[in-house]
């Protein structure tokens, strides 16, 4: 485990002030060199150069100083150029004395021109530089704001903010977010897992009081102020001052970061509310279903059994048997409903972890048909199975339940005695199971909702056919195995529904083998 005391600042130890001063000295030295070079060239070419040419030469050195080093060096080199022009090139030479009035005029004009061009050129340079700096700040802000607005959770926003603030301030940055009644480290430089106790205490103080605080271990901590209140605390390594540009950029970043954190907090809260509302909706649908669908089988069990208890002697043996059978059927129906609800809650709870084994889909279909048994009594089941079939990687138990639900649904929604068609084929990447009934079909506007939970409840005429969970469970199971399920209707002659299940093959078949 690493603590922050092991961290070293990546940037140079020099503070911005000292660094700037060094640059300045270097600028003056270089400007002096430039003036000296102009003098040298003037000497070497003295025979060919007139007074005006010499003046130009010195002006070039002033201009270069202005462009490269700024106002100070430019003005200094203007003075140096004027004086050395006078000293070396105006008669009498090697004195500062000027004999001819015309030379005096030249000297004065040269000095004025050198000062003003130097000053102007340096200003142009400063403006270009500050424009470039602003552009780079803007770039940093844009990058940060892109990252911040893409952050879906407070922790993601905290990570972006810590990284960008660290770059802007040129030092390590951490972001702490509130948690119950304390703050926790949400983002920081790589390797920083735990904060020193003093840092944590200083962060908590900043969070509680809303004022900056300093940790003796070397972090300065600032509360992050959003539009509606504090949203967290940011810490910067080191107590030294930031340059004005750095702190300007940092302030803008912190403001953006705070707003992004606030937005992420709201989004998280909204998502929680949404999840609660969905859970609530499911719960009420469930209660509805229990009161509708469990009541009739329960009434059958209670009614038939009390009939047997109260009037056993008066009932013919055939009637007694029929009552017992109706009790058994109702109990089975209840058992099926309970199974559906359990499957649904497994899907809801996300506790589903499908096994993976190589499965022959035809065998799974056969076993589902067998399990359905007398529930398909009187129906012809047409099978159109490919003779050669790739196996799929699936959970045989889940797959069997999924196809069983679909077949059961086909039986429930088509007239008694109507055929159900089962077909299995494959394409390059999938094994396809098609289950087709000859029922009334599904209106197009309801087609995309057939896999919704409890959909059946919307139609009172569907009472007694089941909980309306079968297809929704089938979809959940198929998708958990990486497959897809879809419904089409009508199939032929304006009637019928086809449910298509596509399961991916572990190894796609090469085209030439199909």
């Amino acid at each position: 485990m690493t603590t922050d005391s092991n961290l070293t600042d990546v940037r140079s130890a020099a503070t911005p002030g000292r660094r700037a001063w060094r640059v300045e000295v270097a600028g003056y030295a270089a400007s002096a060199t430039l003036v000296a070079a102009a003098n040298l060239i003037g000497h070497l070419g003295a025979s060919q150069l007139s007074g005006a040419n010499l003046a130009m030469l010195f002006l070039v050195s002033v201009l270069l100083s202005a462009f490269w080093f700024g106002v100070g060096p430019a003005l200094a080199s203007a003075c140096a150029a004027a004086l050395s022009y006078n000293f070396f090139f105006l008669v009498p030479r090697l004195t500062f004395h000027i004999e001819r009035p015309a030379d005096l005029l030249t000297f004065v004009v040269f000095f004025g021109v050198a000062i003003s061009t130097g000053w102007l050129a340096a200003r142009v340079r400063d403006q270009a530089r500050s424009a470039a700096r602003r552009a780079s700040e803007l770039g940093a802000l844009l990058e940060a704001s892109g990252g911040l607005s893409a952050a879906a959770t407070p922790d993601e926003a905290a990570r972006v903010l810590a990284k960008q603030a660290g770059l802007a301030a040129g030092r390590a940055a951490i972001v702490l977010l509130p948690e119950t009644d304390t703050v926790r480290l949400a983002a920081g430089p790589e390797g920083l897992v735990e904060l020193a106790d003093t840092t944590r205490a200083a962060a908590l103080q900043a969070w509680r009081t809303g004022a900056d605080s300093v940790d003796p271990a070397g972090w300065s901590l600032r509360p992050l102020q959003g539009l509606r209140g504090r949203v967290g605390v940011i810490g910067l390594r080191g107590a030294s001052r930031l340059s004005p540009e750095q702190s300007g950029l940092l302030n803008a970043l912190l403001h953006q970061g705070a707003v992004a954190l606030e937005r992420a907090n709201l989004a998280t809260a909204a998502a929680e509310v949404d999840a609660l509302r969905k859970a609530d909706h499911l719960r009420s649908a469930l209660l509805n279903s229990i009161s509708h669908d469990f009541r009739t089988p329960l009434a059958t069990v209670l009614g038939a059994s009390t009939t047997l208890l109260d009037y056993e002697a008066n009932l013919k043996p055939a009637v007694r048997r029929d009552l017992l059978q109706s009790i058994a059927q109702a109990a089975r129906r209840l058992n099926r409903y309970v199974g559906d609800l359990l499957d649904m809650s497994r899907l809801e709870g996300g506790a589903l972890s499908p096994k993976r084994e190589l499965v022959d889909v035809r065998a799974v279909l056969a076993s589902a048909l067998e399990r359905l048994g007398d529930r398909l009594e009187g129906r012809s089941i047409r099978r159109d199975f490919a003779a050669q079939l790739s196996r799929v990687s699936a959970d045989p138990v889940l797959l069997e339940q999924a196809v069983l639900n679909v077949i059961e649904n086909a039986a429930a929604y088509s007239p008694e005695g109507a055929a159900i068609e089962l077909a299995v084929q494959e394409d390059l990447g999938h094994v396809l199971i098609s289950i087709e009934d000859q029922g009334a079909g599904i209106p197009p506007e309801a087609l995309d909702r057939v896999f919704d939970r409890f959909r059946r409840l919307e139609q009172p005429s569907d009472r007694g056919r089941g909980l309306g969970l079968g297809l929704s469970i089938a979809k959940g199971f198929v998708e958990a195995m990486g497959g897809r399920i879809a419904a089409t209707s009508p199939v032929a002659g304006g009637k019928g529904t086809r449910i298509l299940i596509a399961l991916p093959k572990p190894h796609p078949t090469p085209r030439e083998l199909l």
Partner: protein
Amino acid sequence: MSLRPRILVIDDEPQIHRFLTPALEAAGFEPIRADTAAAGLQEIARRAPDAVILDLGLPDMDGKVALSKARAFYAGPILILSARDREVEKIDALDLGADDYVEKPFGVGELLARLRVALRRGQPGDAAPRVVRAAALEVDLAMHAVRRDGAAVRLSPKEFDLLARLVEGVGKVITHRQLLTAVWGPAHVADTQYLRVFIGQLRQKLEPDPARPRHIVTEPGVGYRFLAD
């Protein structure tokens, strides 16, 4: 022509008919089956059953509509089968003239007991008895007199009106609305607190143990019922 009372069962669930038909037969009734409200109304008109058992949750017609249509031409007892979560529907049905209700799921014994009470009360030509005896109680509706263990009990006029309404329908649930309308008038149908107060007073005067009433029984959320035994 059989002398057994004919009972029409109107329910869309075949499973309910499957046990009700043999149960009614075994209990000495002649069951008639109808699967929809429309078929049920037809059977009422055609067969003139002695009593009707009507499921309120029929797919082809709202239970209340079916009931008021039946009441337009049928005066015999109507028992309602209702669901626990359809409280309001059940009360509306009672207000519309249903005689009693049984909640699904139900035991056959309970349903048949309610049915027998309804049939006894509804016997044609048998005017409501003017003196009703219930254990130690004797209520003389004509004389406005109530005796408990032979001793006269003093009731206020409103208390007597309320008791009379319950006693006239002995065994039958009378809804809050029906009681309030009969005793206090239609302007007071929402004043169920009157009922709580007056029923409490009646129980104090008439019940052997007012905390556990035997005669004036509460049907929670629906109304009250006078039981003779």
